[in-house]
């Protein structure tokens, strides 16, 4: 059996007295959709940020393909093919959708101009439009600031950015929050498509039906710890809620 593409063990993180993560574990295999669920404040976003390199853990071990790594910046995680849709989307609102897609990875202009810092705006625009189209993300205005987009359209830009660059793993922190049924189904379809192309997904969601519909495995986080892992085929919504709130653990212990 090959090692998981990403594995984290005993991750801890405190903010002052708040112990957000108290030894959290998670592992993701290739081409797998793992749902990460838990109540508000369980530490899902904190774990996501740590595994994306956006936040430094206090302790614990992260392995990529079984090899220990330290992510000292998001760039380090990206080098391993890991991309993230942050819960706050992390977009530059004054920039347009194309600029957001390519931020930090701009295509330089050819030749001397490129070395002077000029950008190949036409090429980025073409590639960006192509990415939005292939992901069925509709953008009202390619030249307009993302600030003028609806919340949903902004989320589309963030999702497209992560999916466009992800080689191996995408973290999606509540990409379907407050969505209509149809829009949610489209995102879930995207997740399946990404998975089928060999890229793993870690989906964070509060919607049990969505989680059950799309994931292969479900990891439950409570008080900064993994308290249960379920096979999505053999678990019910009630069991998940029980694990998140702690009642299941109690009844199981009794």
């Amino acid at each position, binding site marked *: 059996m090959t090692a998981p593409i990403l594995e984290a063990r005993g991750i801890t993180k405190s903010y002052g007295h708040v112990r957000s993560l108290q030894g959290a574990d998670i592992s993701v295999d290739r081409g797998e959709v793992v749902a990460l669920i838990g109540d508000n404040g369980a530490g899902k*976003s904190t774990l996501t940020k740590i595994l994306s390199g*956006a936040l430094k853990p206090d302790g614990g071990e992260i392995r990529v393909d079984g090899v220990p790594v330290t992510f000292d*910046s*998001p760039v380090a995680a*990206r080098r391993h093919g890991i991309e*993230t849709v*942050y*819960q*706050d*989307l*992390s*977009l*530059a*609102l*004054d*920039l347009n959708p194309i*600029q957001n897609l390519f*931020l*930090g*990875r*701009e295509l330089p202009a050819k030749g001397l101009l490129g070395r*002077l*810092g*000029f*950008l190949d705006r036409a090429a980025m625009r073409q590639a960006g439009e192509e990415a939005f*189209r*292939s*992901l*069925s*993300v*509709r*953008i*009202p*205005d390619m030249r307009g*600031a993302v*600030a*003028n*987009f*609806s*919340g*949903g*359209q*902004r*989320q*589309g*830009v963030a*999702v*497209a950015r992560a999916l466009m660059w992800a080689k191996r793993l995408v973290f999606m*922190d*509540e*990409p*379907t*929050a*407050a969505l*209509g049924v*149809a*829009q*949610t189904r*489209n995102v879930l379809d*995207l997740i399946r498509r990404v998975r089928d192309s060999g890229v793993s997904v870690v989906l964070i969601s509060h919607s049990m039906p969505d989680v059950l519909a799309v994931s292969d495995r479900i990891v439950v986080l409570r008080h900064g710890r993994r308290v249960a892992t379920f096979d999505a085929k053999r678990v019910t919504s009630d069991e998940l809620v029980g694990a998140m709130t702690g009642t299941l653990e109690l009844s199981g212990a009794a």
Partner: protein
Amino acid sequence: MTEATSAAKAPIAPETSAPGTAGPSGPPPGLGARILARPELMIFGSLVIIVAIFIAMNPTAFLSPINLRNIAVEASMMIILAVGMTYVIITGGIDLSVGAILVFSSVCSLLAMRWVGSDTAIAPVVGLAVSLGSAAVWGVVNGLFIARTKLNPLIVTLATMGIAMGAARLLSGGVDLTGVPKVLIDEVGIGRVHGVPVLVIIAAVFAIVAGVVLHRTRFGLYTYAIGSNEQGARRAGLSVDRHLVMVYVISAVCAGLAGYFSLSRFASTTIAGHGTDNLKAITAVVLGGTSLFGGSGTLFGTTAGVFIPVVLAAGLVIIGLPSFWQEVAVGIVLLIAILLDQMRRKSGSR
């Protein structure tokens, strides 16, 4: 900070329609919305109207070469400061120290030129290098404090303003120094090419280059990105700290250049003459539509914003009104500009 903000819970865009169905992109925005989105056009329009009024009221005096040259030279000095300030404000910062850095670097520059001998051929070159170099040091100090310690730029640059100004007075003994190389005064300060002051030509080239860098290069793009969402910029892999230091160095070097030009124009240091330069530069930048919240602005707008106070000052005198009206008018326009900025932010629901 927790992330459970309203923006995070917003609906999503990937829509159900098949790819390729372009769909209507909503109704075209109204005129008000478009002007809100392009404040620099509004300020440019105002400038054109002001100029037109002065020309209509007294064409011979307003269009006289001497008046035009005066306006252009005044604006040139300010535009150099305002260029750096535009970069700073786009990152969401502010730089109060530019006037003091100008004075400090001009004192250092002049002392260096006198030390190598004001009439030697290398004096102007030494002076320029010392001027830019001594200014850049302050930029590094500002930038490091602001980027690394997360101190408020207003306070950091207020502090360096005081230190730089005090240091300039200590170095000069508190009195203005003379001894500016004659060649510098003749060729740069009062020099002209085909009737156009050299200072104006240099400032114009400088502003154009700075505008191209801001609007067309990766460096400029990162300046906007950091002002829009600093944390997002870090997550996108940008070296935010290094970029901020560079931006404050740019602002300081602009002040150093202005200090050098000030020497060449007035043939001495002008220690007491730059107390409000920082506020004038900020005024020009904000008038020009650059948002004090960071993330948006243009150098074109800043240029128009520089000219408005200068044109008003010159024009009011020509039509026989007290030039104090200039301060009143600029203050009012400034208030309007920041009100519009505020409205723009709200409509973008940031």
